[in-house]
C-alpha cells in the first residue's frame, strides 16, 4: 500500500535497496528482532518450547543461585583478565621485537600466526595431547629422571584454567602481534628521530611515546579480544568438556548451550544469554562512546 501511495520514494534507487535487503533483514529480524525475542522470553518459564507464561525475574534468580553459573562467571572473569593481559602484553612485546629490522621477519610472522588459522577445536585437541600427564610434557620430564615432576593442568580444578590459557594464548597472540606491528609501523619515523636526538633510550621511547600514541590500536585490540573471550566455547569443549570434576572449567556459553539444547530448559538458557549480552554491552558501550562519540566534533 505504501508503495502505491508514494511510489516515487520507495522505488527510487530500487536496485540498491534490493542489494541491501539481506542486510536490512539480518539487522532487523536476526540481530535486533532475535535479541529482543530472547530477552523477552527470558522472563517466561519456557521449558521445552517457548511459551508466554511470565515469571518476572525468576529465571535470573535461579540463574544466580546456580553454583554452575557462578563458577562459569568466575572462570570467564579469571580467564578473560589473564587472557587480555597476556595477549596484549605478549603481542606488544613480540611486535616490538619484530620491529627491530630483523632478518627473516616474514618467516617469524608466518610461524607466530599460523595457529590463528586453526580452529579452537584443533587447538584444544593438540594441547590436550601435549598436556597429557602420561605421554606429554609431564611424562617426558619424568622420563628424564625427575620422578616427582608434576605438570598436569587439565586434571586439577585449580589449574585447569591455566591449561586453557596456554592453548588460548598459543592460538591468539600471533594475531594480536600482527595488529600491534601494524600499529608500530604506522608511527611516524620522525618521532623516532626526535627521540634519538633527545637521547631518550629506546625502551623508554616505546613506553613513554609509542604506547600512548598507539592507544587506538590498544583499544581496538582489547575490544576484539574481549568480544572473543565472552564467546569462549569451542576451546573448552575440546580440551576439558567443562571438567574436571563436572564443572571446574565451565563457561557461560556452555551453560547457555546445555540449558537450551540439552536440558530443555529454554528460560534458563535465555536468561543466561541475556546476561552474556549485558556483559558485552558493558565492554562495548564505553568503547563506542570513546570511538564514535568524539568523532562527531572532528
Amino acid at each position, binding site marked *: 500500500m505504501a508503495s502505491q501511495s508514494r511510489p516515487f520514494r520507495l522505488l527510487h534507487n530500487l536496485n540498491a535497496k534490493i542489494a541491501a535487503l539481506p542486510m536490512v533483514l539480518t539487522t532487523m529480524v536476526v540481530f535486533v528482532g532475535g535479541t529482543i525475542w530472547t530477552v523477552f522470553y527470558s522472563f517466561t518459564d519456557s521449558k521445552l518450547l517457548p511459551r508466554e507464561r511470565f515469571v518476572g525475574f525468576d529465571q535470573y534468580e535461579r540463574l544466580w543461585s546456580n553454583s554452575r553459573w557462578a563458577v562459569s562467571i568466575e572462570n570467564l572473569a579469571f580467564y578473560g583478565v589473564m587472557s587480555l593481559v597476556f595477549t596484549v602484553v605478549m603481542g606488544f612485546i613480540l611486535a616490538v621485537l619484530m620491529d627491530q629490522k630483523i632478518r627473516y621477519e616474514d618467516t617469524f610472522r608466518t610461524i607466530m600466526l599460523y595457529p590463528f588459522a586453526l580452529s579452537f577445536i584443533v587447538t584444544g585437541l593438540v594441547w590436550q595431547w601435549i598436556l597429557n600427564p602420561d605421554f606429554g610434557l609431564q611424562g617426558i620430564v619424568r622420563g628424564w629422571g625427575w620422578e616427582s615432576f608434576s605438570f598436569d593442568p587439565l586434571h586439577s580444578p585449580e589449574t585447569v584454567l591455566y591449561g586453557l590459557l596456554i592453548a588460548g594464548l598459543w592460538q591468539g597472540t600471533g594475531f594480536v602481534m600482527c595488529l600491534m606491528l601494524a600499529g608500530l609501523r604506522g608511527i611516524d619515523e620522525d618521532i623516532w628521530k626526535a627521540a634519538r636526538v633527545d637521547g631518550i633510550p629506546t625502551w623508554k621511547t616505546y613506553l613513554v611515546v609509542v604506547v600512548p600514541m598507539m592507544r587506538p590500536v590498544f583499544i581496538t585490540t582489547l575490544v576484539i579480544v574481549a568480544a572473543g573471550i565472552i564467546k569462549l566455547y569451542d576451546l573448552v569443549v575440546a580440551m576439558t568438556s567443562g571438567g574436571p570434576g563436572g564443572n571446574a572449567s565451565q563457561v557461560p556459553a556452555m551453560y547457555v548451550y546445555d540449558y537450551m539444547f540439552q536440558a530443555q530448559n529454554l528460560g534458563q538458557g535465555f536468561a*543466561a544469554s541475556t546476561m552474556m549480552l549485558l556483559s558485552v554491552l558493558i565492554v562495548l558501550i564505553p568503547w563506542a562512546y570513546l570511538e564514535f562519540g568524539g568523532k562527531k566534533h572532528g
Partner: protein
Amino acid sequence: MADASMSGSLAMTGPRGAKPKRALNPRNIMLYGILLLVCLYYILPLWVMIMTSLKGMPEVRLGNIFAPPVEITFEPWVKAWATACTGLNCDGLSRGFWNSVIITVPSVILSIIIASVNGYALINWKFKGSEVFFTILIFGSFIPYQIMLYPIVILLREAGLYGTLWGLVLVHTIFGMPILTLLFRNYFSSIPEELFKAARVDGAGFWGIYFRIMLPMSLPIFVVALILQVTGIWNDFLFGVVYTKPDLYPMTVQLNNIVNSVQGVKEYNVNMAATLLTGMVPLVVYFVSGKLFVRGIAAGAVKG
C-alpha cells in the same frame, strides 16, 4: 661527508664506508634468541601432531611425544580418514570432510556475493537509512551468538530449513555479513568516485557499474574475503552443532566427537592424524595465501 673526503687518501689502505655492525653483538643474540624460543612454542604443537600421527600405537605408548617416529606408518591417517568411529558410524572423518566442503562452498559464495553487492550499495548508492542499518550490522557482530541461537532455530524451522544444509549456509551468510560488508565497503570507498560518475554519465546502471567496474577492480579484496570465509566457516563448531543433524555434522564437530568419545581405547596417533586432517584446509589456505591472510584479518580487525 667525512668518508667522502678521506676516501681519496685511504683508498688503498682499507675498506670504505661506515664500519659494519657485527652480526653477533649481545643485542642481536638476545633478540634472535627470544624470537627463536617463542617460535619453538608456536611450532611445537604442529611438530607433535605430525610426529604422533606417524607413529604406531606401541611407539606412542613407549616414547617421547617430541621424538620423530622410529618407524613411519601412515596407518593412523588411513584409519582417521576412513574407519574412525563416532557413535555408530565408522566411516571416519571423510564424511565430516565432505560435509564441511558442501557447507563451506555455498556459504562462502553466497556470503561474498551478498556482502560485496551490499558494500557497493552502501558506498555508491546510499539511500535513506542505509548508514543506520550498517551501524546496527557492525554492532550486531559483537552480540554474543548465544542470544540469537534460538530465534534462528525458530526462523529456520518456520522456513523448513532447520537441520538442513541450506539452513546452515544461511546462518553462515548472516554471521559473515558484518565483517565482509565492512571489508567491501572500505575497499570500494577507496576506488575513485570519478570512475563511478563517468560510468553513470555513460549510462551504466547499478549492476552494470558493479560488474564492469567495481568487480574487476577489486579482485584482491575478493581473495581476502575468500580466505577469511573459507577459514572461518571451516573452523566453525557452534553453528554446526546447533543447526545440523549428526549425518551433516561438519568436520570440526566430527573430529571432536571422535577424539573426545569416551568409549574404547584411546588411539592417540589416530586422534592426531584426524586433528591434522581437520586443520589441513585452513593451514593450506594460510600458507598459500601468505600476506593476503594477514591483510584479511587486519582489515577485519582494524577498519579503514
